[in-house]
């Protein structure tokens, strides 16, 4: 399964969150690039409180910081049972459209 991260067509730098221009070379030749989403789980946190009332029924959820091998850092959800640090893989969430979840990476 892949995820999509913006990549500069001029210098190859990945940019996340999506930029108006490349954060490295300022080119505006940017395109979404499908990658495997592998990286290192750097931090984990169980969120008990949300500013959005819609979220409150779905708490707690696990939040994570993942340092992707392509050089960007992503704050995303995490499946239960992970510990830091660990190799993980990001995938689109099955239950929540538009967000990613970190899963244990098969060795």
């Amino acid at each position: 399964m892949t995820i999509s991260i913006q990549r500069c067509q001029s210098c190859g730098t990945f940019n996340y969150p999506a930029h108006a221009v490349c954060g490295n070379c300022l080119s505006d030749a940017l395109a979404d690039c499908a990658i495997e989403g592998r990286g290192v789980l750097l931090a984990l946190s169980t969120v008990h409180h949300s500013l959005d009332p819609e979220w409150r029924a779905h708490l707690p959820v696990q939040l994570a910081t993942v340092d992707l091998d392509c050089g960007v850092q992503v704050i995303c959800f995490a499946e239960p049972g992970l510990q830091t640090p660990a190799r993980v893989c990001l995938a689109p969430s099955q239950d929540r459209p538009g967000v990613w979840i970190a899963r244990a990476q098969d060795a």
Partner: protein
Amino acid sequence: MTRPHAYDGVAVVCPTTVTYEKTSTRSAHWFLARALAQLIAAAGIAKEEIDGLASASFTLAPDSTIALTEHFGMAPRWIEWLPFGGVSGVMALRRAARAVQMGDANIVACIAGDTANPETFAGLVNNFSSFSSQAIIPYASAGPNGCFSLITQHYMQSFGVTREDFGRIALAQRANAATNPNALLGGKSLTMEDYLAARPVAGPLHLFDCVMPCAGAEGFLVMEVRRARALGLPYATIRGAIERHNAYREDPIAVRSGWAMDRDALYAQSGLDCSAIDCVQTYDDYPVITMMQLEDLGFCAKGEAADFVRRHDLTIQGDFPVNTSGGQLGCGQAGCSGGFLTVVETLRQVTGQPLGGQVRDARIGLASGYGMVTYDRCLGTGAVILEGAR
């Protein structure tokens, strides 16, 4: 790097605070106006003598400093708009000082103020930055607590820090707040048992690691030393000041920030080292950020702040006073005023005008700033060393 010019001849005067309130139906304009009126009264000058105005606010929209000139009936020849939260106080001071030094303004009023009600905080967080809208809010809308809980968990694991270590900071600040009538939590004692048993918010962050949003304002005036003397005002001079934005982007998660990049310049400009500092005001949105500042500003090595707070007494009477007003953890976070609080409290301490307890013989103080979490960390850092001239 070119060495910056000294801040010779510049005085910082009249630390002012507009009483904090948990919520308010008044506008940010009102809080900023009260700060200005209090500054004018404290200095004993006419409104017309203020020819520079720097302001900071998160809840003034759609207005900014230029609209305030009309609200306040002023015609300043220099204005600055610095809605940069935790780093706005140091930034305002640096800019105002240069304007006065260069003759672009005679007297600059630096004010920060915000109102607060149940809608303002969520509204602010939901519209804080384009990166946040895109990549943070979809992840459970946890606000700054989400991002800083991740930074805190990583810091604890990296350096063997416990919740009790953070608790030492929270307890010391609560004790300091007890002396400050403006501190919203000053009347409530906090024990380590209370701290550890508090309800969880996000990861290692529990209730007493998080600031309480509130309404209020802070301010000060910047003018020439000779003018401060002529007005008979207690004043401080600026020994050194630094500022940095988006430092160490290459760190995959924040363990340090811009202070580490610029602290040598700060102490070189000041002609001082850490041991000369009588009291420190850190930007205390979370205890982990206070620890990072103690490290990055050179008071201890990276990873050693927990040990540092175990070995030192951070209260007003202690051997290393930190956040002597109670900080934001004790006073509340009045929006951008939180970024002014460190500067205003340092000015109070070194000029002998505290709202609460006075650090004995405080002459030199360090005020730090940290602001604007647009994605996974705050971008702005700053610090200033003030010396009281009584």
